[in-house]
């Protein structure tokens, strides 16, 4: 019976990924393109990213923001903010790992986030992470870069 269930899930995933389509959104100096990919480890143990539009709960989704400096000047003090949607839980994987996190979208701190409970500093569960932010000092003219985070569908 378990075998049948797996088969069915794979089928669902295939249908979902086949209809993937993301349209880029342009901005004046900085163009940002956000994609959502399902993170799957293939048979060889390699992680592959498959575009996703429909996913079952538990699926690990990677949100990846590509940003491009479209002008001929450097961009400074770039702060890319990528929310973790409701009904999703941050897995702790952020690329690059220099991201700061926030549980309220206002106050950011380096990961892992900590708080004091009963006089002891404890880690805040990833499920409470709501936003990640990357501070990039310099994005040279006509250059692109990307940030990404992984989440799990609740």
């Amino acid at each position: 019976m378990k075998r049948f269930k797996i088969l069915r899930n794979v089928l669902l995933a295939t249908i979902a990924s086949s209809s993937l389509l993301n349209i880029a959104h342009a901005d004046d100096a900085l163009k940002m393109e956000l994609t959502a990919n399902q993170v799957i480890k293939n048979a060889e143990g390699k992680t592959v990213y498959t575009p996703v539009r429909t996913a079952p709960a538990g699926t690990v989704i990677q949100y990846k923001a590509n940003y491009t400096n479209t002008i001929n000047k450097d961009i400074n003090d770039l702060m890319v903010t990528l929310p973790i949607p409701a009904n999703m839980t941050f897995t702790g994987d952020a690329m690059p790992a220099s991201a700061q996190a926030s549980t309220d979208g206002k106050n950011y701190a380096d990961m892992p986030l900590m708080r004091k409970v009963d006089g002891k500093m404890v880690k805040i569960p990833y499920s409470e992470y709501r936003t990640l932010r990357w501070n990039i000092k310099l994005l040279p003219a006509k250059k692109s870069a990307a940030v990404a985070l992984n989440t799990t569908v609740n």
Partner: protein
Amino acid sequence: MKSNTFNYSLLAIGVAAVMGLSTGAMASITSGPTTNSTTSAINNVATASYNVAGVTQPTATSNIVTVNVSETANFILYATNGNSATDDKNENIATIPGATATFNHILINEGNVSDTYNINTTANNDANIETATPTQGYAHPANTDVAFIIRQKGGAALTADQANALQALGQAQSGNLTGGANTTTRNIKLLPGLQAALSYTSLTPTGRTGGDIAVGTLTATSSFITTATTTGTKVPTLVNENQTIVRLPTFSIVKTGASSVDLTATTPQIAYTITVTNANTDYSADATDFVIRDVLPAGLSLPNNATTDVTVSGGAGTPRISTISGRRAIDVPVANLPVGESRTITFTVNVDKAQFTGANSSVTNNVAVYDKFVGAVGTLSDTPTVGTDYDILDNTLTPAPGSETTRVPAAADLSGGTGVDSAATTTFTRRSLTLVKATTRDIAPTTSTTNTDGQVTHVATITNLGQDVEGDTNNPLTLTFTDGTNAAVDPVTTQFFLIYTPPNPDGTPGSTPSAPLAVTPTKSGNVYTINSSVLPGGIAPNGKLEVRYNMASTSAVVGSTENTTVRLAAAGTNPPTIPTITDVTNVRGLTLVKSQALDAACNADASAATFVQTAIDNAKPDQCVIYRIQATNTSSAIQTADPAAASGFNITGLTISDLLSNFSAGATYVPNTAASTATNNSSIGAAAVSTSAITATMSSTDVLAPQGVASLTFKVKIKNAR
């Protein structure tokens, strides 16, 4: 058998899957996937702030990406006890009265969404789940507390994230689900891939008996599946059934001993064997730490009053000897008696004869088994208390007393049941018969054949000196009369009589005989047989039975004898041997002797003469010869001292006669010499002489008494010149 069942299940599942069917059995273990057709969309957008040449630019916003989440619920509910840990039933869970049975289940969230499950227990017997064929004595509790412990599927401890996620859901990792049916307090939330070990208990009522079966169910209802929108088949609720059976040993107690014991033995004994078997039943259980108790009936004792008098076989067991109300008691503790096995106890007791003196007295020796549901039956008191000293009491008493509490179905302890018990009953016999005594009778050579005239009667007496009735169905007697070789003297078949003298009401020998009972013996050759079946009721202890029979004669030789052997044979249980007696019938009657004496001078008196039966030589003419004719009654002298001894009879109508022609050729009668005499109270008429004979004749009043002699004498003179 277990592997076969498992393979069969796999086969069934395989077939069902290929055919695209869902089966009832499957439905009880797994819900199968249910995917909500209304997916929820998760949108995301990235933003960025930046400076160009030191000037802050408007915030850049990315495109929106949307992930539509497909939510699939799927869960499994296993009953982990019983034959299989992955089926839908906890079957044949053994329990005992007063104990709690625990049912374990595993609830697994196989879906991809966290789900909330409402856990209930019911007293239902689920129609789709076959556990046993319940004669459902009671039900497991509905809405009882269910303990839970949440782990990863497979049982591993939760990861920190899982623990945190559970906490975020407000779900404790362990605890109790309580409250009424379907209430939210009975909810448990599981993340995908987690399982909850569920368990609850059912108290077996103390009044339950072996074989009682109870069922109930545990149900888990997925809230996600309940509310899911789907066109497929939804299985929101899974059911597991829990079935217990009260397992208790069924004791079969069989006691055997001698069916009868002869109390005429010097030291009568009874050898007993007690066999206690833990019978194999549908609800059987090993019996542990129970006690077999035999309280000997009054009148029975152990030869040495020691444990060495008792032998236990089939396993360990050290007997204890005690005294209860003056009776010897044997207790044998048994530590373990597996199902189907037996423990055997043997011992021999002495019988106090003085305590079993009644007719048909008997003794029944019973045995009891005391057992507890839990723990050992300790050293039993004289009067053990149910609930304290024991829970199970099975004994061999018939009918079963109210105190008996076998705790198995009543039929098991009745005839034909696996636990039927039987006591040992021994009947006592003390049989003693005498047959006295041989009688001697005188009989005339010929007796009447049409009536009893002249017949003689032998009398023998049978006395019952034992304590049991003799001559009844149980203790039949046979009298045989074996007649001797004298063909002229025989028993008269129409003249056999039995005269019974019953004992007095107080049991002492009686003195009032009943009327003679005529019986006709069965004659075979010279053997005459009387069976005691002719005796209604037989001969009571201290009763007497007089046996009379007549002998008749036909032209028997005087002086001959007939011996008739009387034999009394006893049958039945422990019959005594009775010496035979031999009755003697002597043929007696008249003897006639003629003798003579020479009277040379012809002047002698007959009374002084010397008579001889031999020839007289040298007698001369003119000498005289005196003749004497003696008729003797040879029968025995009348006596009264011993009825068994013979008393003779009188002879009447006797005429002694001598013809003159016997001697007239050579001698002549001397006139006036004829005379008659008689002795022994006998008499005969005077001698008379006719022309042809000399006679002496009895009158109607004359008798020749036993041993009496009637004589006729006369004198003749020898002729001269013959």
